[in-house]
Structures are given as C-alpha cells and as structure tokens.
C-alpha cells in the first residue's frame, strides 16, 4: 500500500494539490473502480453460471443477445430495472425496502479487506480475518429481514432456514480459520498470503497441510452462500425461491447481484486462505521472468497478482457451479445434522492436526 500511496502523493504534489485531498481520494477512487469492476464481474459471473449450467445440462445457455450471449445479463439487468417494484399488501414497508439496501453493504465491505495485490488493500487492519468472518455472515441478516418483512409464509420459512443454516455453518468456518491463523501466525490476510510463499510456488500453500480444513471451509461457504446443495433458503421447488418470493424489479435484482458478489468475495477469500492468494503458483512472477527487474515489470507484477487471485477464485467458482449442476438439495434436517455431527468435529480435529504439524516439528 505504501508504495502506491507515495507514488500517488508525489503525483499530486507535482500539481500542488493539498495532501488532504490525496488522503481522501486515495481511498475513494479505488473504491469506485472496485464497485464498477464488481458490477462487471457479477455480470460475467451470472453469464458464466448460465453458460456453464447450459453446457453441463446439454444446452447452449444464453446465446442470443450479443455475440455468444455476452450481453444477456446486461439485457436482463435493464429489464429488471424497468420493471415495476411491487410492494405486496401487508408487508412491513420500511424493513421490506431496507433489506435489499443492507444486503450490498457487507458485500462491499468484504471486498474492501481483500488483498488484491501486494500493495493494495483498502482496509488493512491487523485482524482482517475476523472482520471477514463477521461480514460473510452479514448478508444473512438482510435475507432474514426480507423474509420477515415479506408477509409471506414461504419467505418466512426461507428466512428461518437461512438463519439456522448460518448459525450451524459459522462454527466450522471459525475453527478452520483458527487453524489457518495457527499456520500463518497472523490474523491479517496479507500476512496469511505471504506466509504461503515458497520458492517452489504452490508447495507452500496451506491447502496441503490443511486439506481437511479446505474441504470443510468449502462446504461451509457453499452453505453460507445458499448455494446448491445447501440452497434450502431459496429452494425453488419447495419454497418458491424462499426469502425473495415477494421481491420484484430492481429489489430482486439487488438480491440476485449481491448473491453473486458474495460468491465472488467468498471464493477470493478461500483462494487467499488456501491457494496462496495473489502469489504466483510458480514461485516467481511471469512478468519478472519475462522482463527482468525493469520498471515496467514492477508495475505489471501488481496486475499479474490480481490476475492470479482472480484465476484461483474463478477456478473455485467453476467447481461451485459444477456442484450445482450435479447434486440434489439436502433436506433441512440433514443439513443441520451434517454440520453439527460431521463438519464441526472434523474441523476441530483439523485444528489439532494443524497445531501438531506446526509445533510438533512435522513441518
């Protein structure tokens, strides 16, 4: 962060712009970039999911709007924008409107604490991991709010299910995070990333000592994101989309978008914890290998780091979509049983194993 900060300040000083302006804009400008990038990424993700699901199920997916269906999500977004926002009778108007607004806040905040490259994190506190843990569970609150305010039995049941789900799946996540903290001796995401560095590239990633933790975390994140096979809160064949049954138009679109934004954020988080975050899988960065130690390479390396992080999370997202195409939904009872009787004990055992590996001299 420091390097970029000083470069920016030097640039402003050239034109005699006060430092205060620089201090403020240094955080605001990148945030606008991220917000824009997020929208584009979400649009791509929605398209990717529909395309991939299409190919998995012997179809072509969207292929009419734009070349290869590229503009399909854009067209859908415009359609949803133009649609009427229906507020049904008997809803709690304030909460009903508040829920879609609130759902985006934690998503953006979560994106703010992710280290995209070596020098760039918006909020680089020393306890990023814990902050993330809170933010990842936060969208559930607005889901609950939406379900509660909707005055619809299906929505209420969906909201109930999502709360039960998150409570039971947050615990295994916490234990896995603890094991990561043990491995890296850091509660900062950049620290965790750097702790995974090794000359041999991917050999240092935490997925190897903590493979059980990775699986537990992956499953729990599926549950937190309400993704298949844990998509109970919005089970369309049972609850008719659950909490967002009554939402239409842009309000629905916001729920929909935030779901994908959260998918993206969570997969990046997984990539940081287990797959070395922005580190290159080959040890050295390609820009350094190709261009040596030139000034251009030192700039390009940041983009390359972002590229690696996005590539890793894209891989995880692909697996998540693949799972959605394959598996049926769990029953709500089995879902809770699975978490409390399998995932939680396994994650605790994983923590013990990791401690043994770290301090027992096995590594």
């Amino acid at each position: 962060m420091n390097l970029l900060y000083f470069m920016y300040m030097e640039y402003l000083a050239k034109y005699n712009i006060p430092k205060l302006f620089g201090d403020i804009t240094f955080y605001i400008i990148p945030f606008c970039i991220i917000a824009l990038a997020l929208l584009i990424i979400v649009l791509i993700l929605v398209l990717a999911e529909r395309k991939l699901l299409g190919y998995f199920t012997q179809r072509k997916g969207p292929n009419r709007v734009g070349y290869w269906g590229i503009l399909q999500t854009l067209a859908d977004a415009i359609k949803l924008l133009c649609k009427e926002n229906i507020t049904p009778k008997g809803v709690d108007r304030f909460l009903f409107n508040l829920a879609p607004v609130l759902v985006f806040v934690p998503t953006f905040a979560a994106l703010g604490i992710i280290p995209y490259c070596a020098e760039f994190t918006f909020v680089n506190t020393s306890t990023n991991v814990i902050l993330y843990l809170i933010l990842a569970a936060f969208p559930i609150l607005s889901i609950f709010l939406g379900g509660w305010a909707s005055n619809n039995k299906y929505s209420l049941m969906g909201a109930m299910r999502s709360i039960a789900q998150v409570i039971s799946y947050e615990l295994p996540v916490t234990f896995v995070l603890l094991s990561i903290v043990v491995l890296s001796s850091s509660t900062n995401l950049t620290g965790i990333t750097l702790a995974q560095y090794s000359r041999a590239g991917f050999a240092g990633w935490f997925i190897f000592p903590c493979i059980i933790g990775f699986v537990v975390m992956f499953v729990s994140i599926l549950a937190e994101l309400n993704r298949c096979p844990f998509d109970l809160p919005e089970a369309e064949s049972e609850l008719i989309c659950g909490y967002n049954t009554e939402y239409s138009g842009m309000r629905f679109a916001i729920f929909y978008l935030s779901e994908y934004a959260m998918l993206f954020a969570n997969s990046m988080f997984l990539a940081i914890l287990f797959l070395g975050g922005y580190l290159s899988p080959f040890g050295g960065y390609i820009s350094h290998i190709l261009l040596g130690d030139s000034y251009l390479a030192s700039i390009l390396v940041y983009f390359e780091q972002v590229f690696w992080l996005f590539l890793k999370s894209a891989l995880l997202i692909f697996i998540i979509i693949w799972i959605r195409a394959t598996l049926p939904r769990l029953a709500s009872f089995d879902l809770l049983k699975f978490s409390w009787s399998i995932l939680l004990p396994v994650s605790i055992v994983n923590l013990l194993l990791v401690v043994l590996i770290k301090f027992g001299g096995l590594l």
Partner: protein
Amino acid sequence: MTITTFKLNLGPQHPSTHGVLRLILELEGEKILSCEPDVGYLHRGMEKMAERMSYIQYLPLVDRIDYLAGFFYSELYCRIVEKALNIELSQRVKFIRVIMLELNRIASHLLWIGAFLMDLGAISPYFYAFREREMILRYFEKLTGQRMMYNYFVFGGIRRDIGYIEDIEEILKILPVKLNDYERIITENPIFISRTKGKGILTKYTALNYSITGVNLRASGISYDVRNTDYLYEGLKYKPVVLYSCDAWARYKARILEIRESVTLIKQVIEYLKSCSPTEQKPISPLNLKLPEGNYYGEIEAPRGMASCYVESVGEDRPYRLKWRTGSYYSVNLLRKLLVGNYLNDAIAIAGSLDIILPEVDK
C-alpha cells in the same frame, strides 16, 4: 407452552405440484400435521363429454386424459369398443400396440425421473431425461404426426402401419447406456439416498387400503401388474418389478427397472415384427358405430397405475355413461396419509415420488 400451527397453501400455482394440485397443509414450523388435497383445477368434464359425442368423436379426446401417456387411454378406449363389437385383432396389430405402449411408458417414466430430481433440487437429470424422451417423441411424431396426443389407435386396428423400426432399435441401443449414466449420477448419490431412503414409507396394508396400483404398489412389495393378464402381452416374456423397501427410493428404483423391462419387451416384439409379413388389418368403419346394449369394462397398466374404463351403452351411437379410473387420483388421496409427520422438504420428495399427473386426476 401453546403450540401454534398455521395453514399453508401448497399450490395450485407451485412449481413442484406438477400441474395444479392444491394441498392445504397444516404446519407446525416445517412439520406437517395434516394434509388436505384439493383437486379439480384441471377438470375438463372428460366423462360428461363422452355422453355428447359419438364414439369416434370422443377418441381423440381420450389421449388428453394423461398427456404423458396418451397411448394407454387410447388403447383402453379402443379395447372396450372392440370388446363390445367382438373384433379380433391380428397378432401384428397387437404387438404394434405393445411397442407404442411400452415406448410411451418409457417416455413417461423418463419425464418422471427428471421431474422428481428437479423436486429434489438437482437440475441436470431433468435435461438428461428429456434428451432421451425427446428421441422417443421424435419417433412418435414421425409415425403418428403428433408428439403427445397421438390418436394413433383406432377401433379394430391402427391408423397406419408401423414404420421406421430402425429408429426404435436406435433408441433401444442408446437407452440402457443412458440409464447406467443416470444410475451413476442419481442412484449412488449419497444426498439422493438420504433424501429418499426411508422417506414416505407406504406399507402393503396402506397401499391396498388406498387402492394404490402400478409402480407405487409394486415398490411396496405386492406383485400386481395388469400386464400379466393382458391379452396384448400374451406370448411375451415379462418379469414384473417388485421391490420391498416401500420408500421413495424404491419407487424411483422400480421405475428405472421398469424402463429396462420395457426395453426387453420391445426387443422381443421387434423380433416378431421382423419375422412376420406386414398383413394389414383394416380398422372398422367408425361411421354410425353403435355399441350393443350392455356395460363394458376394460383395464390396462398405465405408467401411473392401473387405468380402467367403464362404458354403459343403451344401444345408441354414444355411451350412456362413461367412467374412468386413473392411478394418480388414488395417489393424490394417499397424500393425506403419507405426508403427515414429515417435514416440508421431505413432503415435496414424497409427493414427487408418487408420480402424480393432474390432468389424469381431474379428467
């Protein structure tokens, strides 16, 4: 503590009621205390219409009683008229009818597999099953000109001779391979097993009490199949599928096995058809067709249980009274008993496993 219950309207516009079934559920949380099926949203007056139409006028409507298994009702109706007029079918016509019935049974079961898995939240099997069903429907379209409402059987014969036997052979070659694929993705899937094993247990006693027939009965351990005594199937080797675990899983497995059994049946028939010469049997002239006074009854093994038809004639060119008995109607009644005590998402799986088709229920 007072237990508060609430009523939930499942349907008539609900994605997993397979049409317009309305279930009035009394729930405590997600647990079902009582279930009251409400049918009749698709009532078309099929029985009353028969009294106003001549026999041949009514024939095309009969396919619409069950749009997924039109051949069965067509055959049943033709059978009654033939019985009344003492028309003897040639062996070739009988076997052509067997081919059509069994292909239609396969198509119907395939659609059920897809829809059932959709109820459970798995997307892909739906499209896979439709892909195979499409081959069969294409063949039907080639032969009869229609994909669903065939109007192919006529009194005393068939509308035109069978053709494109190589298409059927192609289907028979592909189908068992694809069924193995389904079994790999569905039958051995632990989530699928946990959703269906031991769920919705239909005991022999209950099944008999509620007049359940067809696959649902055979999955409860009772070997009752109308095909055993059916004159069309004389001379064909056929082993009824009987499973003893009585649960939703057994009902699924029984349908898969039935498809395999149908494949062997069609293979036998095709061998016969190849050996015999295409001697044409002329259908009787439907003009001024009058059934002699009396009452006539016929039954057939439709994909959703035994279907039977009762015609009372007073010697006019139309029935005095006509009554259909369809398998699904009794399955809907069974929901009253089977759903109680289950959780909502199991209820969807159980209702799905009974293979209810609403046009057949409402007629």
